[in-house]
């Protein structure tokens, strides 16, 4: 079972790679759009990379519900359980 911290750290690597987000800025309470400046297309790239990294499926309909890093961590943890 992957811990929340491990998932956050994995997401932070992805965010740095696809959207140039400083890993120090990434925390569970941060909003992708408002705090990390990740636009809708970058969010798709993050999701695609996360699917591969964590071997989970994140459907299109679900992406809009992932407002914060914590939302994504919760979804990925549940999906990989």
């Amino acid at each position: 079972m992957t811990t929340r911290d491990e998932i956050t750290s994995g997401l932070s690597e992805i965010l740095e790679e696809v959207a140039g987000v400083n890993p120090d800025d990434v925390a569970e309470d941060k909003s992708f759009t408002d705090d990390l400046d990740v636009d809708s297309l970058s969010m798709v790239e993050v999701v695609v990379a996360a699917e591969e990294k964590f071997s989970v499926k994140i459907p299109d309909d679900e992406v809009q519900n992932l407002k914060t890093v914590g939302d994504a961590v919760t979804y990925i943890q549940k999906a990989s359980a």
Partner: protein
Amino acid sequence: MTADHSHPTGPARGSKIIAMGHYQPARVLTNDDLARMVDTSDEWIRDRVGIVTRRIADTETVADMATAAAGKALAASGLSAADIDLIAVATCSSVDRCPNVATRVAAKLGISSPAAYDINTACSGYEYALATVDHAIRAGAATNAIVIGAEKLSDVTDWTDRSSCVLFGDGAGAAVVTAVGDDEEPGIGPVLWGSAPEKSDVITIEGWRPYIQQSGQTVFRWAMVALPLLAEKACAAAGLTPKDLVAFVPHQANLRIIEPLARKLGVEDAVVAKDIIESGNTSAASVPLALSKMVERREIPSGAPVLLFGFGGGLTYAGQVIRCP
């Protein structure tokens, strides 16, 4: 002038592009112009899609633009109107259902009795049209063809929708394609074509007063995931790898699709078409428009392998490696 095309020269071992031509309307619409029409900005548009300007038709129809591009390609080819026995037009924005655009082009250019058809696979239309023409020439059903991509997307754009009206433009591109001789290598490679019909509702131009609508994120995701592998397969069909390409001309949908696609394919050293910056997304016209400009600017050596790859509504896709005219 009467030319008898009822007896083509017989099956050929392949075909090649010998000349290109393109046409764009004179009116330039800038991002700042759009910012005065809807709630958007130059920065937003550049960041999301990479478009700086697009051309918008005034009174020109799809057939007018197709004719202008085809006329230039024909003039550059050294062939005459009487030599042409097939015209194929890729378009998804022609408002007239009959006559088709291809026969209108024939009438305007004085091409007397060509086989003439339109094809609609939205943004991948040009590669589909090129493939069907190549197949017709191989089968011996035609010898000299004009293949055109022409769109007037401004007719089907909702100019009050800020998410879509910033994307599209008008224009046309055309190629003259002829049979190769028995001792000559084909200049149009095998097509890799297909579709993802379960996603057919994510790009639509539907109804009696149709506007282009799309689920941008879904299309973008499909493009990110599916296209690199498909483009690689199109190269493999020609016995090549992406590293062998001298130029890559993908459909000009979004700079943020084009650049990662080029990166994933590993074609950074090739000349990659980025005509979207000045022309916007012109659907089936985008590839021949971009290629014609690259040929005109002599950016690609004659005979060099170029991957054309279209993708869009349907969702359809098609690609083939051609030899630059």
